């Protein structure tokens, strides 16, 4: 059933958030330290576990995949609800730093991609 997938996703999500907050408390920051990242790791682990034990059901997986597919619409809604006026009014320093950091980041991508890259390319 699809709801099993949604429930699994919800469980991994909340567990990840909990891990993030616990880690945050540990280093005295009132916030979530990589909670989403932990949740993704839990979901991948659950997925691998289910596949190994042949517990994987198509409908269960579809329950998760639906939310994955909702990602783009959600990002669009997020873009529409950003405080773009503040970003505009933040003055030139915000624009300069934002743009410069992005451009330098792009330049670094091919450089650091060399690390750990095997000769057989990992392409799709």
């Amino acid at each position: 059933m699809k709801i099993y997938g949604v429930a699994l996703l919800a469980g991994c999500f909340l567990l990840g958030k909990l891990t993030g907050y616990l880690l945050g408390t540990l280093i005295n920051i009132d916030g979530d330290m990589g909670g989403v990242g932990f949740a993704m790791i839990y979901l991948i682990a659950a997925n691998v576990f289910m596949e190994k034990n042949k517990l994987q059901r198509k409908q269960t997986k579809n329950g998760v995949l639906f939310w994955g597919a909702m990602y783009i619409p959600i990002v669009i809604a997020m873009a529409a609800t950003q405080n773009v006026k503040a970003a505009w009014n933040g003055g030139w320093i915000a624009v300069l730093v934002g743009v410069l950091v992005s451009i330098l980041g792009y330049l670094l991508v091919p450089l650091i991609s060399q690390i750990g890259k095997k000769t057989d390319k990992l392409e799709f």
Partner: protein
Amino acid sequence: MIEIVQNIIFKNGLIFAFLCVGVLMLLAFWTSKYILKNHIPGVAIAIIVALILAFFGDKKGLGDVKIFSGLSLLGGSMFRDFAVVATAMNADLIKIKAAGVAGFISLIVGVSFSFFIGAIIAFFFGYNDILSVTTIGAGACTYIVGPITGYALGASSEVIAISIATGVIKTICITIMTPLLAKKIGLNNSHSAMVFGGLMGTTSGVAAGLAATDVKLVPYGAMVATFYTGLGCLLCPTLFYIIMNYFFV
């Protein structure tokens, strides 16, 4: 009649948001395919139009306009994080392991270079107190690291606002530029997507930019990027602040 329609929309804001985003995407994909001949991806068009529409509102963008308030819920952190986690279902464990070291290095490099570039520019713009420089540097990481660092250190609210603005500009920049530059920087496989996520850090920008480039890359970039904000919140108010102390003595 208009009142009845408005009432229905107010009461069902999230549902109306689904409809709005669906219609916007339909128009954006149609424009991409038939008018722009697929030169600019439909997702990128939809995101840019959404950002422009956000000017009609205020702090919450279009979400401030009452009938569109459901967009704030749909585009809020709860649904966003939930959907990001769901994308991990498609991630290939072998590919993640292969990029592990590069992903980790890119995170460290990404947070450090963003912070110090931001801090240096802030200094040359005439901010010569350590709190402002550190907060703006943190804002160059993401718009979450900026305010968290600013509040933790006790910076002024004006500087915190600038740090948020810096992070938002970075997100917008990455959203728009990624599909245009992807080919040139070899962003076409899971390995470079993870490095990209680690260097840029802003989860929303990375995920949106990758979605507009190639949807298959989203989970890899987003997964590394989600650790970025955490690492930034860890390093900026602590280690980086201590390092900045040496320059301001």
